[in-house]
Each structure stands twice: as structure tokens, then as C-alpha cells.
């Protein structure tokens, strides 16, 4: 039996044979059972770190199929997971001392929740994987424990009808599994998704990495064309949206992300606007006002737009709510930003010429 491979580049495509084998012939070969442990090695932790920073986002995978955890018997429980390393590792590391079977679905290296929403952590893939691994021959019972956040993709009653296996949804968080196994039930709190600071913080690095290059280019450009304070303002509004917003999210006053972002962006713009005011003592009052106002107009919508986009990284915002937010706030963001940019151009030109 092979040891758990680290990030494996195999994806669904290579499982589809070039020359079409007849269905019966393929079904007769169950995939090999691999072994795994509940220990996370330094290589595993390095893989998690890289994944959190967005390095090779789709390549943090394990091979789909059946895994033996510990010394399972045909009576041992079956846990189902996605083939994203963070998902698989969260599951097995929570099951220290447990003998069980882990059925890994091919979600193309995507986590359970997103894959469920997309349908890849879904009824069809689960049924397919049960059949291809010959799970019915490996275990004597007919029970599967699925992560609760897989539910948007899996119809439990349909899995039962098609395979005879009964789906039970375990707790949201893997660390609650030992308690769940002990009592045979999940408490209401185990079934609630929360968004604590720690969960918000782990989302920051990957958003930051994606924003850094465009931010640097624009900041340098504006720094040269307009002045160093413009570079600072650009960086401040972007970093407020990408780093500060996830951290401060629950403490910002309003309900929707866009208005929270506008408030945070406004607060970020104040010191920059003040610096613009103090830095132009000799200028005519209207030029000075323009130099201050351009930051107050252009910065908040940048932060607000980044905040609006953070909705996609949460399990709280609904499609209806986000759509409503987009219609309510994007025009305002566009006007504010447009006004700020127009003013910036005007002020810069007047300074250059005057």
C-alpha cells in the first residue's frame, strides 16, 4: 500500500482513458487502498502555508480514492473528504487514534464548501467514488460521515437510493469530530458556521498576494505623475480593503460589506487628506480644497469595492444580498471614484502649469 502522496498533480482528466474501455471492464478494477495517518509532517505544514499564500493554488491535491486511517476493520466508520490537501489534512489530523476509512472525492484540489457549491463535491462524484473504490466490499455497514459543508452539493436521499449508503452529516469543523463520534450526534453549535478573527485572517495572505503587483504598479505610476502622497493614498486604500477590512469586519457599523468598506475607506482617507491639506500651505484655497477632496472622493470607493469582493470569501452573504449590494453601491462607487480621478487630473495639471 502506498503512503499518502503529497500534492499530486493528477486531475480528473487523466482518469478518463484515451481508448474507451467498456464500462464493465473498468468497474471491475477497484482503485488501490492507500494508507494515511493522523500526523501532519513538516512537509504538510509547508504545503498548507504555501496554499494559504496562493502558491500553485490548484496543485494542493491528494489522489482521490479510499484511504485506510489507522487499522480499520470492515466495521470502522467511513469519512468523506475533498482532495484538497487542507481539507484532507484537517480531517485526518482531527482523527488521532481513530481507525477509519477515508473516501476522498475528486474536487480538483478545491475545498469542500466551494466544491459543493460548484457541484464537484456532489452526489454524482460520491456515487462514482463509492463504486470505483468498491467501498461496499470493504465495509460491512452502510453509513457515510460527510462534512456538513458538503451538503450544498450532496442529496443524501439520492445517495441512499443509488448506493444503499446512508449519508450522515458530521460537524462543520473537523476538531469537533471526536466529540461527535463519542456522542453520536452534533450539537447545534457544531452545526453553526462562525467567522471568527482567525478564520478571517487566514484569507488575507492570498488576497494580498493578488493585489500586490497591480497595487505596486499603480502606486508607482501615480507617485511619479501626481506626487508621493498619491502613492501613499493608493496603497492605503488598497491595504485597507485587503488587510484591514477582513480584520475589522464585525466592528464596522453597517450591515453590508460595501458600506462598511466605504466607512473604512473614508477613515483611511482622512489622514491622507489632512496630509494633503498641510502640505499645500501656499496654494489658492480652491486648489488646496481640490487637492484634499480628490483623496476623499477616490480612496473610499477603492476600499469599498475590495470589501464588496470579500463577500465571495465568506459563508455569510447570500447571492440575493450581494446582487442587491452591487446594484445599490457600484454606481455610487463609480461616481465617487470617477470624480476623484477627474479632480486629481485637474489639480495635477493646474499645479504643473500654474
Amino acid at each position, binding site marked *: 500500500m502506498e503512503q499518502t502522496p503529497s500534492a499530486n498533480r493528477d486531475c*480528473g*482528466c*487523466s482518469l478518463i482513458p484515451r481508448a474507451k474501455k467498456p464500462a464493465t471492464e473498468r468497474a471491475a478494477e477497484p482503485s488501490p487502498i492507500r494508507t494515511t495517518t493522523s500526523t501532519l509532517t513538516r512537509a504538510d505544514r509547508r504545503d498548507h502555508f504555501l496554499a494559504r499564500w496562493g502558491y500553485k493554488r490548484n496543485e494542493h491535491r491528494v489522489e482521490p480514492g479510499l484511504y485506510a486511517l489507522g487499522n480499520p476493520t470492515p466495521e470502522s466508520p467511513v469519512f468523506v473528504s475533498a482532495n484538497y490537501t487542507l481539507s484532507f489534512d484537517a480531517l485526518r489530523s482531527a482523527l488521532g487514534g481513530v481507525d477509519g476509512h477515508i473516501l476522498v472525492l475528486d474536487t*480538483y484540489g478545491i475545498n469542500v464548501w466551494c466544491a459543493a457549491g460548484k457541484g464537484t463535491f456532489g452526489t454524482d462524484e460520491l456515487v462514482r467514488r463509492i463504486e470505483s473504490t468498491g467501498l461496499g466490499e470493504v465495509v460491512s455497514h452502510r453509513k457515510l460521515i460527510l462534512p456538513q459543508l458538503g*451538503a450544498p452539493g450532496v442529496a443524501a436521499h439520492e445517495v441512499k437510493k443509488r448506493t444503499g449508503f446512508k449519508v450522515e452529516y458530521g460537524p462543520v469543523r473537523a476538531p469537533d469530530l471526536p466529540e461527535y463520534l463519542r456522542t453520536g450526534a452534533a450539537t447545534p453549535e457544531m452545526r*453553526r458556521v462562525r467567522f471568527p478573527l482567525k478564520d478571517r485572517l487566514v484569507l488575507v495572505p492570498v488576497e494580498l498576494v493578488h493585489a500586490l503587483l497591480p497595487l505596486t504598479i499603480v502606486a508607482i505610476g501615480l507617485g511619479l505623475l501626481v506626487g508621493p502622497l498619491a502613492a501613499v493614498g493608493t496603497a492605503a486604500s488598497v491595504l485597507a480593503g485587503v488587510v484591514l477590512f477582513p480584520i475589522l469586519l464585525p466592528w464596522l457599523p453597517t450591515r453590508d460589506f460595501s458600506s462598511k468598506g466605504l466607512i473604512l475607506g473614508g477613515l483611511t482617507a482622512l489622514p491622507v487628506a489632512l496630509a494633503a491639506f498641510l502640505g499645500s500651505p501656499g496654494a489658492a484655497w480652491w486648489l488646496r480644497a481640490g487637492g484634499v477632496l480628490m483623496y476623499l472622493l477616490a480612496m473610499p470607493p477603492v476600499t469599498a469595492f475590495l470589501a464588496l469582493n470579500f463577500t465571495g470569501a465568506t459563508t455569510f*452573504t447570500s447571492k*440575493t444580498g450581494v446582487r442587491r449590494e452591487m446594484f445599490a453601491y457600484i454606481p455610487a462607487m463609480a461616481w465617487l471614484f470617477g470624480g476623484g480621478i477627474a479632480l486629481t487630473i485637474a489639480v495635477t495639471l493646474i499645479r504643473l502649469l500654474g
Partner: protein
Amino acid sequence: MATEAIRSNVNTLEYYPEKCINCGMCVAVCPHAVFAPNGKAVQVVRHEACMECGACQLNCPTGAIAVDSGVGCAAAMIYAALTGKDEPTCGPDPEPTCSPGSEPDTASCCDTNTSCCG
């Protein structure tokens, strides 16, 4: 059959109590405790907390729940609106032309979709 639906104008979640057989799956799968047991049928207790993930709808064996679920991320919706696609999808990979695990008509699906194979 005109069934009374529980609705709200905050989101698209609809619940038809007459179809409920009290299996409790919706209570089990909801990440925001929108439903709670209440005697012979479940009750919607936190309608506004629904994030339209669709887990309840999918796991209700009698179709007592309806919700317009789908990708709720602004970036995907903006992208879909700009490029004229119907349904925004998430994920860093472009959609492979063969849906996962299905039988493509030809084996060339993998030849053209090198992105999904890294």
C-alpha cells in the same frame, strides 16, 4: 395544490410546511440555523440569516424548500455580466468541456484542456 409558502423579501428562501415530513435534514445541514424542529414540522426561525447555499433544498426529500442558490460572489457576477455568460462559476480553472467524470465523446477533451491537468 395551493400550498402556503413561508417567504421573505430579504432572500429567495421559500418553505412549504405542508410538504414537510419532519425528517430534520434541513436542520442538520443549515450552516446558519435557519430552521429548527417544532413538533410535526420544522419552522423557519432565522429567515434573514439564510445565505442561499441550497443545502436544505437539495437534502429535502419532499421538495418542501426552494431557494435560488448559486455563486454569490461579486467578482463572478460582475465577470458574468460583463462577458455575457448566464451563470457565473467560481474556481480558478476554466470549466473543462467534459464535466468531471463524464464520458466525453472523444478523448481530445484532455488534449485541449491542459489547464485542468496543470
